[in-house]
């Protein structure tokens, strides 16, 4: 009788498991969980692929890989895309670490690109390449930083909402760039962007994009050191963790906010410079291509660690390129590749839950209870 009672109690009142926070997980266990998540994601994607189309999912995955690393040109392409995305992710990281929600990277990148393009057009013929490129870098940094400083200034002065402000700054930047491209298009007013001949970044070792990659690699290392070992990086962490603590120990919070946003914007400006001078050699209003927003995800996924960001940006680029290859090869609607990318990212983010929490089965000690 007691047994039955117990059974009733269990089945009526207790859910079979409960969630408990993990104390601290060993790093390799975390990685096993992540790998399992990716495998499950691939399985789910495969099932959906079979259900919606008659494509063999295994073949599809190979197509995907092939579409990203199939030829040396594709590999370089992927690396260059990763570099740009990584650069923007690095740019937003200090701001996010400070809990300043800078979602204006898109605009800051475009403005940096615009500064570069203007230098290339108006000074291109007049100045020797080294001076021209230096000017391009400086102007893109200054303008990018300026674009980020405007919302930061209003935040510190009037406590305005930085999320909305930085978002709005994006639209202004997009319209500005659209106006300039229209003004400077060839022939004028046609909207076909002009190819900028002067001030292109040099080709190193026969690889067009190598210099971009190298520059971003340097920025990654610097950013890592800056955040972890510099006094300013420490101040960013303190302000982000608790503004009250920052004030308590005498950090000038406003100054830190302004300085950090200037850095964030400046690196965005560099990303814009790399896009215009190192990659596209032209400027359009969609040159940033939404990467200012994707970068936020890259940064969060890597938990603001610049080294992990290399991996997360690579992952995102891989998924994007691979998925577009699938739609191209199998002539599928592009939303299909979005579905695949979405599922995989969902599982990767979901894995973080299982890294932070564990699921415990209730009443393991059934026998003891009788």
């Amino acid at each position, binding site marked *: 009788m007691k047994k039955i009672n117990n059974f009733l*109690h269990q089945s009526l009142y207790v*859910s079979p498991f409960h969630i408990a926070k993990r*104390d601290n997980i060993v790093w390799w266990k975390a990685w096993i969980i992540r790998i399992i998540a990716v495998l499950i994601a691939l399985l789910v994607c495969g099932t959906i692929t079979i259900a919606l189309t008659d494509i063999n999912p295994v073949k599809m995955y190979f197509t995907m890989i092939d579409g990203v690393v199939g030829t040396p040109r594709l590999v370089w392409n992927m690396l260059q895309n990763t570099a740009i995305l990584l650069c923007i992710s690095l740019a937003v990281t200090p701001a996010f670490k400070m809990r300043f929600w800078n979602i204006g990277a898109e605009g800051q990148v475009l403005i940096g690109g615009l500064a570069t393009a203007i230098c290339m057009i108006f000074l291109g013929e007049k100045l020797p390449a080294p001076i021209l490129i230096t000017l391009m870098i400086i102007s893109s940094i200054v303008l990018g930083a300026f674009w980020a400083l405007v919302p930061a200034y209003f935040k510190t002065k009037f406590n305005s909402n930085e999320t909305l402000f930085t978002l709005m700054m994006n639209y202004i930047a997009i319209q500005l760039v659209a106006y300039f491209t229209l003004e400077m298009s060839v022939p004028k007013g046609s909207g076909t962007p002009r190819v900028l001949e002067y001030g292109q970044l040099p080709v190193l070792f026969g690889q067009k994009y190598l210099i971009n990659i190298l520059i971003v690699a340097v920025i990654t290392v610097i950013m890592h050191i800056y955040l972890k070992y510099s006094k300013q990086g420490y101040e960013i962490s303190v302000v982000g*963790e608790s503004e*009250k603590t920052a004030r308590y120990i005498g950090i000038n919070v406003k100054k830190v906010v302004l300085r950090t946003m200037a850095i964030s914007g400046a690196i965005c400006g560099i990303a814009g410079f790399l896009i215009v001078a190192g990659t596209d050699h032209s400027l359009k209003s969609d040159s940033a291509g939404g990467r200012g927003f994707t970068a936020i995800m890259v940064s969060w996924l890597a938990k603001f660690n610049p080294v992990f960001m290399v991996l997360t940006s690579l992952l995102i680029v891989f998924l994007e390129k691979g998925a577009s290859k699938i739609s191209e090869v199998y002539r599928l609607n592009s939303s299909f590749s979005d579905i695949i990318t979405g599922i995989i990212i969902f599982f990767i983010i979901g894995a973080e839950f299982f890294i932070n929490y564990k699921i415990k089965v209730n009443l393991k000690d059934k026998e003891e209870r009788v």
Partner: protein
Amino acid sequence: MEQNIALELKNITKTFGNVIANKNVSLKVRKGEILSILGENGSGKTTLMNMVSGIYYPDHGQMFIDGKECIIASPKDAFNYKIGMIHQHFKLVDVFSAAENIVLGLKDEKGFDMPNYIEKIKEITEKYGFELDLQKKIYEMSVSEKQTVEIVKVLFRGADILILDEPTAVLTPQETVKLFKVLKNMRDSGKAIIIITHKLHEVLTLSDYVTVLRKGEYAGTVKTSETNEAELTEMMVGKKISLNIHRSVPENTCDRLVVQKISCMNREGTKVLDDVSFTAKSGEILGIAGIAGSGQRELLEAIAGLGHLDEGKIIYNDPKSGKEENLRDKTPLQIRQMGVRLAFVPEDRLGMGLVGNMDIVDNMMLRSYKKGKSVFLQRKAPKSLAEEIIERLEVVTPSANTPVRRLSGGNVQKILVGREIASSPTVLMAAYPVRGLDINSSYTIYNLLNEQKEKGVAVIFVGEDLDVLLELCDRILVIGSGRVTGIVDGRSATKEEIGLLMTKSSEQHDEE
């Protein structure tokens, strides 16, 4: 007799990760009885009661209500078993009245009948002797009134087993007496009451039985009438400790910090400090007593350069140069640059004094990271400081690189106080430095404060336990509603005297 048992726990075990919060704890409470659960902070009292009220679920063990085994997997189950818990942090809607909060969430199939409910609530308040204005809004209430609302709320819902988590932590001595009176009334009408506490004298005056927990383990149950403070302390701590705070007579005192008629307002425009004047002397501990939220925080923050003052002066007498400096409207950075060595242990340890997500070393750096011209951080000195504090103050931590939020309250406080003292201050301000600390840690802190006092530091100690204030401080300043209501001598004043001063100003304000 066994029929009378309202709640019984048998061999309850609960772990969080590797931390054992409760191990094989058993207890019984009968109807018409008050049981105290006594234990130091971190001994698992609240965790145990959270399992009874359905917030956590035990890993092992059994619970019985009225002699029948039961499973409580959610607060709803606890509610069905007529268990009501009054948490340390109240869960009330500020803009609602007392009555509205009490009936909130009630499911009545017959429809919502407020007048009827109010009748019922009145019956309850009259039966047990609560004083409560049902129409008063929560935001207008004192902490004690809010607590009353919480208690009436669980009674209204028909709870027969009441659990109160540290109910007296926020009350004045007079309010505590009132609370105990209603608790006794409830007991006499057959309710089973459990109070969680770490205050010994409360246990002795109020409860019938005491169950003691020590580091999550069951240390025994004793009948209150057959025990005394010393025995209970020994059960709690596991060893004999003396409960006397050493207090030396101040020597060579001089005026270190002279606060002159300071006033300030909060953001809503109400005066939180009103014409406050006092002097803190070197080599002396100045206690500040008052009901929570009477302006203690604002006062210390104003001195530390964190708040804006509307009026008044804060004069610091520099012991080296002999110069007088006005600290008013200076930022913490400017104060430090003036050479004023002011240490401040704020009330909000993890939100202000420390950064929870950073490790001990990085927290040590908070005060000193700017030293040196290098753009890079120097982690060597803070690291050795961290290790020194860990060793000297017996901080329990896996390593110096553990984030401080993972440490227990006592250890967090040792880190904070240790860091503040390390700067060899001339003024040390500490707001509720022993709140949430176990006996041993509390005494470590008292000793540290005394040590500083003997070194000639002007110590300002904001406390809530009047017994401690009276044992530790040389002078006690009593603050009520932002005004100084009296400064008494720590050696001759009585608890009642201070209790009266604490409430004095608020009553005067009402009359005005």
